């Protein structure tokens, strides 16, 4: 589960990780009072107004702006709040900004050089343990750093038996070239950050940039936190941080019906049992000349109710020109699924796009007979390649 920057920073702060302080608001009128309060708390003279959406690249898209006084705070806030922010991660339609974070300025001049670093914690799947990644190339996309100058990426793997050790935090801080007060701050920053990562059951922390201020403080300027969905059951407080306005409405509706659905941009909808087969069905649609409109796994218990919910969600997508239902009946019987499809179809009434139903496995022939005798505008197939052929035919 993704959360907002301001929520991520609250979590970090509660674990003693120093952050760039800020106050979140959702009304332009609250921006100046928030800035005044922040000034009182931190003494900051300048402010940064930051759009809160679940996507990276906010700065380049015009969602992060400096304000040098309170008038500018108001101006920036009114520009950013409510805007449709487009970044490389939002898609061409962008995302509406419903909240902004009024933040202190941490790039103030002083004795020592201000410098940005990169720090992340994530799972190394191959080694089955967590890894801390750090780089002196703060503020840059880590994938670009990995491609062009991999030697600049520091990796420190954490032994699951003992967790992060002090020497490892020191090693990272030394390799980042720090010394003195900034070194000490970085060591404690890494240790607190790792504790926060483990105790919140996170699957990724990315702090980019981590900043060394001109008075040698180390703090998180941005924070991207990804929580392990499988562990949310034991973090009720974190589960509440979910912001459904950041999600696709169809995905929210699908989740409420226990369907695993991901909205895509194509023209052929699909409904499948099993995640692997669902992805493979999307691939087949592409090979048949279409483009998948979605990923949809109805799970092990495909019945009239789940099929109907699936139909309704797929049909709400105006781009859908055809629907492919692909069920491999192992434990679930194909005749039951076929009856479910017919029942769901009748409950919905008129469906104006062609539907291809491919049922294979237990009672596949009986299932096909039910579909063929239903009198509905539904094509049936038993073999996967026949279903693929039907998809290309209906798209012609």
């Amino acid at each position, binding site marked *: 589960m993704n959360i907002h920057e301001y929520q991520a920073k609250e979590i970090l702060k509660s674990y003693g990780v120093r952050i760039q302080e800020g106050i979140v608001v959702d009304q332009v009128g609250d921006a100046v009072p928030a800035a005044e309060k922040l000034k009182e708390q931190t003494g900051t003279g300048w402010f940064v107004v930051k759009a809160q959406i679940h996507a990276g690249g906010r700065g380049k898209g015009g969602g992060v702006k400096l304000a040098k006084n309170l008038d500018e705070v108001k101006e920036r806030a009114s520009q950013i709040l409510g805007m449709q922010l487009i970044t490389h991660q939002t898609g061409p339609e962008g995302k509406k900004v419903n909240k902004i974070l009024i933040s202190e300025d941490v790039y103030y001049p002083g004795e020592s050089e201000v410098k940005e670093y990169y720090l992340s914690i994530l799972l190394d799947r191959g080694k089955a343990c967590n890894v801390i990644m750090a780089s002196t190339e703060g503020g840059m996309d880590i994938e670009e750093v990995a491609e062009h100058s991999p030697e600049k990426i520091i990796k420190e793997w954490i032994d699951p038996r003992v967790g992060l050790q002090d020497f490892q935090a020191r090693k990272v801080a030394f390799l980042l070239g720090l010394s003195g007060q900034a070194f000490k701050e970085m060591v404690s920053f890494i240790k607190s950050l790792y504790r926060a990562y483990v105790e919140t059951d996170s699957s990724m922390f990315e702090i980019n940039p981590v900043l060394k201020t001109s008075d040698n403080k180390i703090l998180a300027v941005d924070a991207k936190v990804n929580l392990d969905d499988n562990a949310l059951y034991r973090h009720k407080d974190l589960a509440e941080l979910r912001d459904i306005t950041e999600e696709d409405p169809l995905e929210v509706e699908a989740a409420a019906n226990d369907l695993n659905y991901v909205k895509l941009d194509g023209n052929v909808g699909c409904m499948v049992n099993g995640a692997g087969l669902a992805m493979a069905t999307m691939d087949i649609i592409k090979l048949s000349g279409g483009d998948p409109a979605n990923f949809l796994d109805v799970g092990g218990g495909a019945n009239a109710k789940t099929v109907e919910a699936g139909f309704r969600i797929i049909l709400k997508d105006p781009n859908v020109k055809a629907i492919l239902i692909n069920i491999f009946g192992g434990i679930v019987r194909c005749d039951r699924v076929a009856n479910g499809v017919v029942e769901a179809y009748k409950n919905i009434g008129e469906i104006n796009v062609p539907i291809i139903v491919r049922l294979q*496995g237990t009672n596949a022939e009986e299932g096909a007979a039910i579909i063929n005798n239903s009198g509905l505008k539904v094509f049936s197939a038993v073999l996967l390649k026949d279903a693929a052929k039907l998809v290309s035919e209906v798209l012609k």
Partner: protein
Amino acid sequence: MSVLVNKNSKIIVQGFTGTEGTFHAEQMIAYGTQVVGGVTPGKGGAKHLDRPIFNTVAEAVSTTGADTSIIFVPPAFAADAIMEAADAGIKVIICITEGIPTKDMIVAKEYIQNKECRLIGPNCPGVMTADECKVGIMPGFIFSKGKVGIVSKSGTLTYEAVDQLTKAGLGQTTAIGIGGDPIIGTTTKEAVELLMNDPETEGIVMIGEIGGGMEAEAARWIKADGNRKPVVGFIAGQTAPKGRRMGHAGAIIGGADDTAEAKMKIMQECGIHVVYSPADIGETMLKALGAK
């Protein structure tokens, strides 16, 4: 011969008396699998499906001589169940449970590292040796005893491959569902290696999906090992978008190496017969074995 499980395997079911455990234990028994008992803490001493229930895996092992365990325990307790099985001396632990927190799996995987056991899964359909033994949730009737082994991250996609191999007249030796989570007990390469060394297996179907580097690792090993047997490979998710989890917890494209395209390229370079449509698995294997 076969790998991991056969007609002599003695199986216990952890989470025996739950809905899933009960249903699938019945199916396994109906297939002829030797289910010798089950474990449900607190219900020890009673019977279920005409077989004894034990409080602990250790007790089940010492009483029944079980060497294999299948786990249907809910996600919050499943990692603990894996470690209990390993501690009790179970040799093959097959975990079906989906949704185990990653943090718990890191601990469980580390714990079993030095034990003499092999973990399959979690989040998998289990292991099935045609006509001998079913330790999982795969539908038995689509299998026929034959010569192709299967390694797969996905459930229903495995059934698809099994069905095509049956219809092509090739049949199967053992199908291994390794699971779709980011951390799993047995990797693609390890499962392929088992089948490569099985004298009865003449060809291998390797089904992967987006996310992680296991298919590339397996492909490189197959090449280094001299391509002893033909391998047909498929990667699901050629059309999946970046950064979205596609059902399985592990099926997510983070970096460039995670894509289906990248994996298929490496597989091809390593001499694997890559298919772009899962509908072509059976026919491709038929040709590959014929040409051998």
